[in-house]
């Protein structure tokens, strides 16, 4: 009798775990997330904005993913955008950047700004690296606001700057993330 109950319980746990892949936990979604890119070059500073990033955040498990369509970075000069897509990011070959990982340090019940960090895999230009990205999360009106600022070394992602472009682009660029999540 005891054994049967135990088997039943285990079975329930198994079912729960198996269904995890389909839907598990409380999910939040961010659409039109803002990604800004800043390169402090020797000759000119280059800045770009992308408001097409999408992200999902599972608060229960801490899982966080985001996708950035590379072609949607908008520059001040149209030629910069052409070069960015054609020469540096090779957008036709690698149209998207993704992040897949876990956010730690976040609680739905805490008030005010919370220091968080996302640990996982960042894929850019077809290269995947393990990264830890620090950030700040805040709850407001049931929405989660997630902000982060971090540096990326172009070398790490095999992004080569053709020597003919000289020193227009910094070797390390600053990325800023600003996502607002709504409950799904």
């Amino acid at each position: 009798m005891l054994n049967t109950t135990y088997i039943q319980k285990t079975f329930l746990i198994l079912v729960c775990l198996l269904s995890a892949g389909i839907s598990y936990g409380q999910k939040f979604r961010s659409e039109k997330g803002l990604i800004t890119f800043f390169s402090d070059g020797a000759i000119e500073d280059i800045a770009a904005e992308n408001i097409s990033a999408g992200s999902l955040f599972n608060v229960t498990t801490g899982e966080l993913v985001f996708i950035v369509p590379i072609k949607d970075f908008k520059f001040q000069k149209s030629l910069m955008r052409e070069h960015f897509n054609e020469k540096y990011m090779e957008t036709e070959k690698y149209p998207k950047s993704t992040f897949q990982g876990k956010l730690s340090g976040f609680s739905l019940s805490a008030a005010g700004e919370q220091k968080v960090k996302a640990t996982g895999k960042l894929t850019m230009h077809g290269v995947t690296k393990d990264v830890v990205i620090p950030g700040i999360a805040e709850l407001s009106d049931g929405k989660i606001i997630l902000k982060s600022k971090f540096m990326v070394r172009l070398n790490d992602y095999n992004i080569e700057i053709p020597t003919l472009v000289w020193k227009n682009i910094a070797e390390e660029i600053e990325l800023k993330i600003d996502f607002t999540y709504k409950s799904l």
Partner: protein
Amino acid sequence: MRRNLLSIVFLLSSPIVLLAQEDLLKELEKSTPPETDYAFQTFKGTRLVNGQTVETKAKNTLEFIFAHRFGAINSGAYEAFGLDHAYVRYGLEYGITDRLGIGIGRNSVDKITDSYLRYKVLRQSKGARNFPFTMTAYANFSYKASPQTGVETIDRLAYVGQLLIARKFSPRLSLQLMPTIVHRNAVIQSTENNNQVAVGVGGRIKLTKSVAFTTEYYYRVNPHTGTTNYNSLGVGIDIETGGHVFQIVLTNTLGLTERAFITETNEKFFDGGIHIGFNVTRTFQLKKK
């Protein structure tokens, strides 16, 4: 029994956690509506060799084009194999919108002033909207000031209508087809047609991220039976550096505008009637976005 079950639960659950993360990315991908990706930089510049490409200048950008051709290589040592002579065209092209451009230029050959409009009618795309090629319509109007006297104004004019159809097959390879008609108001009736139909073919292969090989050939469909001219052929190397595009070309024509290189090419490429030349462009952003 208990241990066994626990280990089964453990074994089963560990890949599931990983799977869940994969699925979250997939879920995000699925829930993002498909977008349309338009082909960009089918060619590096607005010129393939002598003629046009499907490219238009982005809105509010101004391109300064300086093109020049030396004399023919087979003109001999006395002419320094053509290097003693240089024929030039200075031009400006402005992007009114991302798809509509206007241009003007002055050619030293025959003192031709040419002006044109181009409009990108169709854009190659994939994703939500799939379309196989880019098509730009091009119209050119030119005035030949040479000779200075003895010719009526109306006889100095020529018109060009052209469709530029290109496909970027891969980041490295783009090909272009250019059906063209050139109408000149005055021609030598014994050797030339007022209306000359031609079909151009051309393309580029990128050698590195900043260097490309280009080629272009214009075939005259209805040359006059008494024609003394030839079809124009050109090859070039494009080198892109920031806001500049340098093109080094070899071609059998001095013409730097359609009326000239389609209907007035009088040298044979494979007899050494080849001109070395350069096209240099500089793009200026007039208004920031």
